[in-house]
Structures are given as C-alpha cells and as structure tokens.
C-alpha cells in the first residue's frame, strides 16, 4: 500500500507538529520534554558529532550479519522442505513449535551464552529473520506450478537443471517477500535487543542505536535524543524497505 503524498497528505502531520510544538512551549522551562525545535537541534548535533551515523552503522552491521546467517540456513532448509515431502513432514513440527516464541524472549538466554555483546544481538536477529524466510521459501517452492515443471521435463531437462532453472526462479518472488519481511523484523529486533542489552548491562554494551536510545533515557535524560533516534529508526526502516523494492524490480521484473 503506497501512501499518496499529495498536498493533503501533509496536512495532518503538519497540524500535529504544530500542536506538539505549542504543547512544548507551554511546558515549564526546566522540563526535559521533547519539542520539535529541540529535536531538530539535537538531530543536527548528533549527526555532526558522528554519534548517530556511527550507531546506525553498528546496528546495520549486525542486522546484515544476522540476516545473512538466517538467509543461508533458512533458504537451504526451506528449499529442501519445499521440495521433499519427507523433509517437510518431519521438520515442519519443529519449525512451527519454535515460531511462536518471540525472538526477544530468547535474549536473556543469548546473553547467558554469548555475553552482552554483538554475538547475542546477531543471534536474536538471525532467529527473528529465520522464520519469515523459511516459511516463504517453502511456500515459494510448493506453489511452483506443477505444469511448468512437467513442461520442462517433456523438453528433456534433467532433474537438477530443473531445480536451477525452473524451481528457484519460480520461487524467487516468494523468497523475496520473505526476505523483505525478514529484514523488517530483523531491524525491529536489533533495536529491541540493543535496548534490552543496554537496559540490563548498565550501559556497558557495545553501541548501536537501540543502546543509544536507552542511554539517553536512563543516563543523560536527553529525551530529544530519544526522539531523534526514533525518527532515525523509522527512516532506516523505510530505506531498507525501499532498497528491497528496488532490488525486487531489478532481479525479478516479471513478478508483481
């Protein structure tokens, strides 16, 4: 669902922004309440000092790593499960049993195993990204039109070749959707993981934007900073999704 950013679209956000600013002005002078103008100022500072870009960079690094691990594992297993009845029947209960467990619930476990560092965060991201990827891969393989495969067989294409040239391209759109979803969930999870790590390790974690947000809350009470981070989180999420859409159009122009 694309938003139509006609002129009317800006009406509500602008009104809300103005109301927010007015509310801020009405607050007592000492209050740490975040206000649009302060937020803007904070944003400039944080970007200029390099803190914000660094934090985002760190978070994205972890997301990419976790996503990659999840993708390799999920897509390979997914292809197997989609193609071979036997694998699907036996592995599916396991996948379905772990799926309802929210990734973040495993964070304490991850911290126990890996410490409050990057590995724990990457683990959570990988776990979170795993499920959309595998489910969409399986679905993508399963819904390959049997007739298309038959057509290929009647042209004398060998079994392995079929996997390469028919099944994977047919499943690609679905896998891509899974990847897009997984990326979105991964980004959300990294923020949550970093925040939780920051919360429980007394600020001793290793950076990232979630961490930064929590530090602003707990230690320097810079609420404007928090809002800046929130906006940054949102913007990055949009950019990630945009990248995927562009990639999708490049790699699979035939699918929509």
């Amino acid at each position, binding site marked *: *669902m694309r*938003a*139509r*950013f*006609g002129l*009317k*679209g*800006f009406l*509500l*956000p602008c009104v*809300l922004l103005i109301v927010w600013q007015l509310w801020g002005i009405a607050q007592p002078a000492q209050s740490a309440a*975040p206000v649009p103008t302060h937020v803007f100022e904070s944003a400039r500072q944080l970007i200029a000092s390099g803190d914000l870009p660094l934090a985002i960079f760190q978070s994205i690094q972890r997301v990419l790593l976790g996503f990659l691990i999840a993708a390799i594992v999920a897509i390979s297993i997914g292809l197997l499960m989609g193609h071979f009845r036997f694998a699907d*029947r036996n*592995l599916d*209960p*396991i996948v379905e*049993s*772990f799926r*309802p*467990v*929210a*990734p*973040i*619930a*495993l*964070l*304490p*476990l991850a*911290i*126990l*195993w890996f410490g409050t560092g990057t590995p724990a965060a990457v683990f959570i991201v990988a776990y979170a990204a795993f*499920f*959309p990827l595998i*489910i*969409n891969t399986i*679905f993508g393989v399963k819904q390959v039109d049997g007739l298309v495969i038959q057509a290929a067989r009647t042209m004398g294409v060998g079994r392995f070749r079929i996997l390469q040239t028919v099944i994977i391209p047919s499943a690609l759109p679905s896998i891509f959707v*899974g990847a897009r*979803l997984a990326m979105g969930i991964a*980004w*959300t999870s990294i*923020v*949550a993981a970093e*925040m*939780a790590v920051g*919360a*429980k390790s007394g600020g001793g974690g290793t950076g990232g934007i979630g961490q930064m*947000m*929590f530090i*602003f*809350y707990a230690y320097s009470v810079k609420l404007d900073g*928090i*809002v800046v*981070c*929130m906006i940054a*989180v*949102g*913007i990055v*999420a*949009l950019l990630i*999704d945009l990248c995927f859409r562009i990639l999708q159009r490049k790699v699979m122009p035939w699918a929509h």
Partner: protein
Amino acid sequence: MRARMAKQAPILGATDAHLTERILRRISPIVVYLRSMAVVLIVWQLIHLRVGNPILLPSPLAVAESLYQLTRDGEILEHSFISLRRLAIGFGLAGLLGIPLGLFMGFSRLAQELIDPMIEVLRPISGIAWIPIALFIFGIGDELPIFIIFYGAFFPVVLNTIAGVRTVDPLLVRAAQTMGVTHRVIVSQVIFPAALPNILVGTRLGAGAAWMSLVAAELIGAPSGLGFSVQWYRQLLMTSKVLAFIVVIGILGYLTDRSLRLLQQRLTPWAVDTGGAR
C-alpha cells in the same frame, strides 16, 4: 463409537477397515509431531551432556522439572495471567480503535489521503522504539506494556482492514445494486462480510506483533509478567527456569494464534486460509 459405526455398516469387515483408516488419519500428524520433537529432545540432551554446564544449557528433564515446580507454585499462572491481561487490553484496544478506523479509511478516499501519510510515517517506528519515551511517560508498570502492545498491533489491524474494504469484489456490490438495495444495506450486508476475512487476517498479524511487543516491553520495563520472569531468572542464573518460561511464552503464543485461526475458520468458512509468515 465402535457401536455406532457397527450400526451404520452392517458388514463387519468394512466397519473395521473404515475405523482403522480413520484412526490412522487422525493420529498420523500427532505421531509425526511426537517423533520430530523426540528427536529435538534427544539432540538437546546430547548437547547438554557435551556442554556439561547446567547453567549454560540445562537438560530437558531439568526444564520439565522446573516447569512442573513453577506451575505448582502458581508462579507460571500468576505471570501468565498478568501478561495475558496486558495482551488482552492492548490488543483489544488496537482492535476497537483500529477496525473502525480502517473501515472509515477504506470507505472514504478523503480520510485515507489525510490519515494514511501519518500512518506510513509512524509505522516504521516500531512499537519497541517507543519504549524509552513510553517509559518516560508511563514509568515502569502496567501501562507501558499495554501501550507498546497497542501500538504494535494497531498497524496490521488498520492496514488489513483498509485492504479488506478496498478489495471487495466489485461484482458482489454490483449484484446487490441490481437488486435495488440501499447503500446502507450494501455496506453492512455486502462490504463488511466481504471484508471480514482480511480483517481477521489483520487481527492475527496484530496478535503476533502484540506478542513480540509484550515480551520486549516486559523484558525492559515491567516489574512482572512472563518477559520479566525470563529476565529475572537469567540474572539469578537459574537457566532451567528461564527456559521454562520461554516454553510457556511459546505455548501461549501458539494458542493465541490457534484460537484466532479457529475464529477465522468459524466466522469466514468460505475464505481461503492465507496463513503463514505474514
């Protein structure tokens, strides 16, 4: 049941074969499930023995024992209840506000053009990113998880409701029009039932998001509940209890999804199940 079957099919051979076939069909998925889980448990046990550190990875038996203990103590029930209560309130609010808003935006192009950009701006900022600000506003307590849950569930509900209204088969609307019914009837008797499958999908997705938000919020900013318990026992290095709570979270999450799926089937038996990752 045997007696009933015998009455229906006088030929004894047919009855027996029919019965066994039905039992097998019923049991088969359960067997497969148990078999796979058994493999998981065995692998788990093996890794546990290899690792040798009960704090790092307790054996499945230890976890089972903790589960039993905690249930008996009532702790699991207590925290489950707290968490579920928050979930219900947050999710309920999301539905109560989200569905009407979605319907409104679905019907009115103008409403959609005005409100949608706001939604598209807020949506990428996940509920979890709101936790610090929410902590500032609400402090540690019940309201925080409820707010985060509401936020997380709100968007899937609204967006899917809008989609539901928008993708009503125009043919159905036309059919109703050629029967001379009023616009009001078309909205309530045609568009709403036709949109219901999508609305229910939205609630299922919302529930999934709600669970994630619940656990995150409780981990970080609540003094009670399942998420809190996981964190609490981790700090006490009582890993088997940590795992026990994780299992409970998984089970409750599964039950939530299952019941919504059942609701979906009950209310909209004609709709194709779009279950899966989304």
